């Protein structure tokens, strides 16, 4: 399974977490399409805590975290 974690405004209508089977998606971009998220809505895409690009591959057991623009200090 792949765990997808949504944060901030990306939770609206999607909840906090979703589980997908590894067969359904092969990269972060697939996840965005699966949840109807535009690429420009996502400022930070993490795979297992590391910054990644939509085309980077994902595999069974990965945790994908999606954030809109956030920051502060």
């Amino acid at each position, binding site marked *: 399974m792949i765990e997808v*974690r949504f*944060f*901030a*405004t990306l*939770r609206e209508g999607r909840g*906090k977490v979703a589980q997908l089977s590894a067969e359904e998606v092969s990269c972060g971009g697939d996840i965005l399409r699966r949840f109807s998220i535009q690429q420009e809505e996502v*400022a*930070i895409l*993490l795979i*297992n*805590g*590391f*910054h990644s690009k939509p085309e980077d591959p994902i595999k069974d057991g990965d945790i994908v*975290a999606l*954030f*809109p*623009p*956030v*920051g*502060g*200090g």
Partner: protein
Amino acid sequence: MSGAYYEKIARINLSTGEIKPEPLDLDTAHKFIGGRGLGTKILYDEGVATVDPLSPENKLIYITGPMTGSNSPSSGRYMVVTKSPLTGMIACANSGGIWGAKLKFAGWDALIVEGAAPEWSYLYIEDDKIEILDASEYLGVLSEELDDKLKAKHGEDCSVLNIGPAGEKQVLLAAVMNDKDRAAGRSGTGAVMGSKKLKAIVVKASRKQLDIIADVEALKEANKRCLKIMSENALTGEGLRALGTASLVNVINSVGALPTKNWQESYCPTADEFSGETLAEKYLVKPGACYHCPIACGRVIRHDDKVIGGPEYEPLWAYGSDCGNDDLYTINEANRLCNEYGLDAIGVPCTIAAAMELYQRGYIKEEECEGVPLEWGSKEAIVEWTKRMGNPESPLAWLMSSGSVRLCEHYGHPEYSMSVKKQEIPAYDARAIQGIGINYATANCGAAHVRGYTIAPEVVGIPVQLDRTVTEEKAGWAKTFQDLTAVIDSMGNCLFTSFALGAPEYTDLLNAATGTKWTPEQVLEIGERIFNIERMFNKAAGMKPEDDRLPKRLLEEPISNGPSKGMVSKLSVTLPQYYEARGWVNAFPTDETLRKLGLDECIGK
């Protein structure tokens, strides 16, 4: 007068009661901009570096920048500059609200407070008039209540800066508060105010805007351009208004850099419980904004039956995972107490976390805890010990209120103090994010995140996304961020504008307001000059090269859990690169560097 300075400083000697207006030297102002830069230059020239910080010989400067009170974006900032009793080095604490703008509207670029009042006093400023008034009836009054009382006395249109009981008792973690929930929070500025028996400064001004801008039309154009960039930027246009700085809790936790239980861990599985998302869902009433700020990152929350200023990211983390706690109500309450007692909402919870580790390891005994054991995640301990640190009576409360270094040294284990230059480290694990460690180690005010916020490129991708785990090029990024931050702090704009604006925009604003003709490169060089004179102040104050260091835990104990498990800070690689980029040898500028920066007065010192 013209060019965004009223060219007037008030020198107030509380020992003698003498209040003397002095002209601002415009050449010096241009060379150091104002705010943080000019304040440090004044302290350096007046020999404050070598004095006892809590003696009448220390000087306390409240200083605006040329942009403070202007129509430029987020321009309500002022700085408290003094010698820190916590670090023994330069203190330059920045705050927002409206107090700084009002001071400027009253026609003062800065106040230099000297000596110590024979009895508790406060300053009342109404345009040109400055009076020293009796504050004895306000002793022991909490910060927000005092704000109300002084407004009731002097009118709702005044703005109040004050200290709470912590500052009165010269607690080393005491903050200067203004406009109820804004704080010049760090380095113990409130203790210096308390040492001078100065309880508050009330400002009232007839002006509602600055009437001294050099080129009004050019500033209007520059403002328009900056506001457009900021409104189109996803973070300054929308993101910070929606969730505030609290949005960082989940991001920083997700990369495995959220220090937990005094940095014994770096990932907190329940962080969402005290995140910006949960804060918005459960408690947020509306976003809050400082003077002329389109960002509105502040949190106005419902707490019990009141509507108050809510916590920023730092106290959410520090009272949250760092204390092993995930109860958001407790964090809101502890943060409220910091505002009421006038405490540094980073230093206090970080010191409680250090005390909890000392308790965990058996160094602090249960019998010392006066019925409230310092157990991880104890809601009662978090709230009660914050109160005790804000108005200390017992030996342990006094020790804790002096910060984690003095606390941990007392128990023979300084290694559990997560601090640099005796100031507690903020909310980003430098083992997981290599660049921020350089800033922690080298910030002249002691560990700080807002003196070179490399989290922007290393985590949130602004202006570009860097690999947080590597050391390459981080020294250069740290230096550039530090220099630009020194410029922004000195101008009187908010650092958060820099999520959208860069050196060219700040240069346009500055030139339009002051009539200078700087290039962006020259403006960055001013920032470098400011950072270097701060370092020379520290050198004169007795700083040693070994003060540019990180706690052993960050260098030798790999992260124990989460996505960044196994990482350590590689400061031994980045620090020499940083010194080279700065033109420093053994932590201090060479004469050649000082000459290049026009700091001839520091050569040979």
